[in-house]
Structure formats: C-alpha cells, structure tokens
C-alpha cells in the first residue's frame, strides 16, 4: 500500500452507507441535506434514483448502493441524506445513510486502484477513522462511473427499441 502525501490540511467528508464507511474530499462536496422529494425517471437504470429539486436546481440523484453493487432492497429510507457534489453540467447527488463527520484523514492508496474493475477505479484509497475503515471515493471517477452505467443502459435500451421497430 502506497502512502499518500498528506499535509494535514485536506479534509474529508466521512459518511455511512449500508454499514460501510466512505470518505470523499470536502473540496468535492457542495453540501449535505436531508433526503428531498425524488421523482423517478422512467426506463432508467436502478443506479439513477430520480430527479430532485434542490436550491433552485434540478439534481439527479444516484444510488451509491447500486454503484457499489451492495445488496439492497430499496433506497426509500426517510432518514437518508443527500450528499450534493458539483458536476460539469451542474450539481448531482448521491443518497447516503448519514454524514459522520468532516475530518482530516490519513489516506492510503489502495493496490486495486489499477484493476480493470470500474468500481475499483472509483476507490482512490482508504483511511482509518474512529476504529472504522473508510473507503476514499474519487468524486470525478464516481461521476464517470455513474454516467457510463447510465449511458450503457440507455444505449442498450435504444438498441432494443430499434430492433423492436425493425422487426
């Protein structure tokens, strides 16, 4: 495991999702809010929970459980929170269970970051906080991973529709 350079000034937003602790750089976080009303998008991948209207912005909401391929039934817990991240076209959010803290972490680069697995590219490292292992997420990689999954789903869906039209 390679030790990341850490000057102690970078803070991470530590949060919990399905008994897993995750951390993301505070500079990549726009804000935290209680779960807002989310409207489902028809014929979309389960990764996309829906669209929400937050602070006068339409925010697409992505399920972290679906991205991490964690066994789950449904992200309908009212106690969930929405972690808003800045994106190229605008803010987007991921549903989490609870923000634990905003703390500086000593991050170690994980060895599986170069693997072919897409989810492994999202995980940039790990840290220890309150006797818990915190997986450090790369916000840009997470955004690209979610976008690729949605594009693949919609592409497959359009191809199936075209084949259906041809036939």
């Amino acid at each position, binding site marked *: 495991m390679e030790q990341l350079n850490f000057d102690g000034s970078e*803070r991470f*937003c530590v949060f919990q999702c399905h008994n897993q602790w995750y951390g993301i750089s*505070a*500079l990549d*976080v*726009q*804000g*935290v*809010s*209680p779960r807002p009303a989310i409207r489902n998008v028809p014929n979309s991948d389960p990764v996309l929970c829906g669209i929400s209207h937050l602070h006068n912005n339409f925010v697409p909401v992505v399920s972290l459980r679906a991205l991490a391929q964690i066994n789950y039934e449904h992200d309908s817990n009212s106690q969930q*929170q929405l972690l808003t991240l800045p994106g190229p076209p605008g803010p987007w959010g991921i549903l989490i269970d609870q*923000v634990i803290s*905003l703390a500086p972490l000593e991050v170690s680069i994980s060895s599986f970051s170069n693997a072919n697995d897409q989810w492994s590219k999202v995980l940039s490292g790990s840290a220890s906080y309150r006797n818990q292992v915190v997986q450090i997420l790369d916000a840009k990689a997470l955004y690209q991973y979610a976008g690729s999954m949605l594009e693949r789903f919609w592409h497959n869906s359009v191809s199936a529709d075209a084949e259906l039209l041809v036939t």
Partner: protein
Amino acid sequence: MRTYLSIATSNLICIVAGSLLCYGSITETPAVGTGCLIAGALLLVGCFGWLLLKFQPAMQWLTQVAKSPEQVDSAPAGAAEIIAIGQRFLRVSSDSIRANADASLELDAIRKFVASVNRRNSVRIADQSGSTLNQLKDVFESLSRTLGEDVKQTLTSGKELQRNTEKLVGGVEQQSQAITSTTSLVNKVATQIEQVYQNVKAAVSSSGIVRDHSDQSLNRFGTLIDHMKKVRNDSSVRERKLSVLGQHTREIGSIVETIGTISSRTDMLALNASIESVRAGEHGRGFAVVAEEVRTLAEQSAQAVLDITARIESIQLETRQTVAGASDEHKQLDEVLQLATETLDELKEINDAASQSANSVNDISYATQKQLVLTQEIVESLASNNEVSKGNRGVAEGVLWTARNLGDVGNRMDDAVSILKRQANANTNYSFPASSDLPFADRPANA
C-alpha cells in the same frame, strides 16, 4: 245452737198457748175463759210470726241460690251439688210451712168449738148430752187424723232434709279440698310464670343491647361507606390527573422531538458551514472554527435530546402503568363499595329484625306480667272461695243439727197424736189425758 234454742222456745210457747186454750174452754168463769182463749191465740200467732222472722234470712238465701241457675251452671261440681240439696231443702221447707198452715186451720176449728161450748155455759162436760160428746169426738178424730198426716209428712220431710244436709256437708268438704288443691296448682303456675317473667326481662335487656349495637354498627358502616366513596372520588381525580400528566409528557416528547430535529438540522447546517469553510480555503479557517463549535453544540444538543427522550419515554411508561394501576384500583374500589352497600342493606335488615324482636319481647314481657297479676288474683279468689266454703260448711252443719231436732220434735208430735187418737176412740170413758201423757211432758227443761 241458737236455732235449737229458738225451736225449743217456740215449742214451749205453743204448749203454753195450748194450755191456755184448753183452760179457757173448760173454765166455768166466762171472763177468765175468754181471756185465756184470747191470750192463747195471741201467743200462737206471735210464735208463728217470730218463727217466720227467725228463718226468713235462711229462706231468702236458699231462694236466692235456687233462683240463680247461671251460678249453678258455672259453679264447680261440689257447689252444684250443694245448690241442688238447697233446692230440695227449699221444697221440704215449703211443705213444712204448708203443714203448719193446716195445723193452724185445725187450731181455728178447735177455737170455734170451744167458743160454742162457752156460749152454752154448761156446768160440766160429763153432764152434757150425748150429741155434744159425739160432736167433740168427731172434732178430735178429725183433728188427730189431720195432725197425724201432717206429722208423718213433717217426719218424712225432716228425714229427707237430714239426708240432703249430710250430702251438703260432704259436698262442701269435697269442694274445700278441691279448692285447696286448685290453689296449690295455681301457686305452682304462678311460680312458673314468675320464672318466665324473669327470663323475659333478661331477654328484653339483651335485645335492647343488640339493637343499640346494631344501630352503632349501622352508623359506623355508613361512615365507612362515605369514606370509601370519598377515596373512590379521590382515586378518580388522581386517575384524571395522571392521564393529564401522561398527555403533557407526550406533548413534551413531541417538543423534544422537535428540538431533536432542530438539533439535527443545526448539525447538518454546521457541517455544511464546515464544508463551505473548507472550500473557502485560507479565508474560511475562522468560519470553520465557528462552524465546528456550532456543530459541537448541535451534537451536545442532540445528545441531550436523546437523554431527555429516554427519560420522557421512561416517565411515559411509568405514567401509563400508574394510570393502569389507578384504573384497576378504581374498579376494585367500585367492587368493594358495591359489596359494602349490599352489606349495609343487610345490616339495615338485621337492625329492623332486631327492633321487631325487641318490640315482640317487650310485648311478651307485658303479657307475662299481666298473666302473673291475674294468677295472683286467681290465688286470692280461690283463697276467698275456700273461706266461703268453710263458712258454708258451718252453716250446713247447723242446718243438719236443726233437721235432727226437727225429727225429734216430729216424733214427739207423732206420740201426742197417737194419744189423742186413743182418747178420741174412747166413747164413754172419755177423760182428759194426764199431765204425764202429754206429748211434751218428757221434754227437757233446758230445751
């Protein structure tokens, strides 16, 4: 004894009167003869009047007894027998009075004959014509016949009177014994009634005590029921207050929940402030410190809210248990109050029964006391009857003695009538009887 003297005196007077009549009829001096006849007649009339006055009370008493059949019916057996004997004695006495009336008629015939002899003014009876002697003989024969029948009837009546009087004495003796026995029995009954009366007095006292205690118990139980009702009302008020307290606790829980929500929002707001300060870089360091402090306060508030919530949940649990206990207590109080009310009703019935029992025992006591008084009066009446019976026995003995003397007198009169018959049957050799042959010659001087 007094009756015997009276009869003897009357006989003596009759003898004197007869002697005067005889002397007046045979004397040669008209004035002396007329005086002797008048004196003899007056003595006879006086003697009969005196005898009537002497025996009038006894005759009235017997007549009164004979005229009271209701007393005969209600009297005991001995008294009824005595009254029957008295009635027979009354009949015999009536026969005797009738015989005396016949004798008086015969004496009047003699007096008329003597008057006719005096009118003729003859010198001696021996010189008289045969017609006069025959007439005198007829008169004496008629007189002896009548007197003989009357004397026999008088003797028969006297014997019957003697037998009845003996029965009367025996009946009075039996009556006295029966009254004595009845008095003894009534005395025993009076003793028993006295014992019953004492027991009833004790029962009256006991029933009074029972009634008083029943009244006190009734009053105390009524007070107890009032207190129980007050406790039930207090329990109801307490139950309502506990319900209100539970409602307030729920409201406090709601407020604390709101506070918890605010604390959570504050925490989230502080977190966002910290994120913004981080994104602000060096310019946001001071703001990060403030946001961190706010977030710490928010966490403390959240922790306090959690503690308060736990306490409130505990209070709510205890309140619910207390309310449930108060409800159970209220139900139990209702059941106990219902039982107490039923017991109070039963106590009232017991009290009424005790009062009725006390009144009944009082009535029994009054009746027993009255019975005791009546029994004592019966004893006194029986004692008085016994005294009266003893007096009747003395009277009956006197009547018996008189009847025996009357029999003796009848016997002597029968002897005199026999002598008179013999003299009347002697036609030619008529002579007056000697003084020793007279019926009353052997009569004792003290009689």
